[in-house]
């Protein structure tokens, strides 16, 4: 009997203390799966290994489960790395296809997610981004736009952040997103990117400094 589809949560990140709600923005289904994990009904990591094994046996439905699990979570990183949904979707498609083709080389199927994320990070590096952005208002907004009243200001803030991110060097943007948005440890980032920890710390700091510089006025205004 097929086990039910489970959506993963974004892991908690070391975020600055001013942001106090670690599940801020998590979709309801993801929070539900977190509860089920805590009640010990099943372990999320086992699920990956089971689905990988089934996929290798020829069960495409199992691969579909894996895609549904990671598409939005890793697509979120690709979206901010590349600046638009179209490119992020292309990267996710490409990454899933490569993962499928190379699935036998996934040596730790219980860590399929980490293995897939490495592919996503590499694909983001090689995809050529649009050099000019399409700044139509609301073009790439997530669905959970805040309540009316502050809508225009929230929109502007979101777009300014996107513009500022786009102005960072790709390696700095990558380091910043991995550290602050994905919440990875520097050791994990070094393993993913091939750069050493001091270099990554420098990149994260430069990115954070530059973002602050670019966004100070909008934030305070």
């Amino acid at each position: 009997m097929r086990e039910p589809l489970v959506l993963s949560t974004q892991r908690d990140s070391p975020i600055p203390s001013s942001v106090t709600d670690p599940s801020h923005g998590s979709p309801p289904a993801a929070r539900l799966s977190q509860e089920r994990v805590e009640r010990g009904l099943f372990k999320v990591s086992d699920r990956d290994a089971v689905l990988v094994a089934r996929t290798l046996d020829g069960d495409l439905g199992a691969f579909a489960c894996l895609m549904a699990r990671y598409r939005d979570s890793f697509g979120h990183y690709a979206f901010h790395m590349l600046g638009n949904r179209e490119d992020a979707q292309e990267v996710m498609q490409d990454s899933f296809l490569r993962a499928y083709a190379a699935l036998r080389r996934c040596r730790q199927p219980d860590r399929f997610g980490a293995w897939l994320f490495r592919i996503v990070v590499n694909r983001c590096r090689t995809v050529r981004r649009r050099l000019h952005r399409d700044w139509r208002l609301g073009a790439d907004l997530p669905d959970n736009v805040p309540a009316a009243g502050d809508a225009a200001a929230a929109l502007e803030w979101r777009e300014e952040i996107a513009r500022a991110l786009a102005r960072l060097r790709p390696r700095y943007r990558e380091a910043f997103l991995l550290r602050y948005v994905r919440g990875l440890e520097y050791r994990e980032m070094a393993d993913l990117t091939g750069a050493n920890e001091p270099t990554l710390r420098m990149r994260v700091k430069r990115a954070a400094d530059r973002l602050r510089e670019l966004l100070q006025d909008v934030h305070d205004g």
Partner: protein
Amino acid sequence: MSTPRTLALRAVWLLAFAPGALAAQDHRLTERLDAATAEGVQRVVDSAHAEGLPTEPLVQKALEGKTMGATSGRIQSAVDALFGRLAEARAALGRDASETELTAGAGALRAGLDAGSLRQLHALRSDEPLTVPIAVLTDLVAEGVPPDQATRAVLDLARNGRSDAEFMALRKRVQTERRRGASADAGPVVRPAAPPAADPPGSP
């Protein structure tokens, strides 16, 4: 059970996904070039791959040479020279430089610009991608603007934190003036436009 078919497929996947492996033999080289030239070019591609330098421009250079009827020796020289310029571009632009930046940098060096200009550009705009400024600098020189004048104009824009769109606008202005027949040495053509009072809404 490993049939020859499965072994072949595994070999292919290994080539594609084993980190740190040699660059996969590029079938375009073996299909289009003679064996000796293909081998020579593949060696350069492997070196570039090992150094973390872009490999596709090297393959394209070899294919270009073949199509243009160049001798094997000339193809090899061009590929070797490009490899050197990619390495030089990286020395100037830093280890954080992307593949497109390195390729653009190599193009600038080939156009006669010196590594110092690239280093200065990198210093002025180290937190933002440099592909467009380098491309514009190269194109200005190709349009006949003296290198030092082109460099000054591009560095000015970088120093003032201008966006990619403004670099492209500079190039467009120069092209338009050239087509109207103005001399490329005329100062006003290459002087950047006065910075606007504020960025217009919707600009990147």
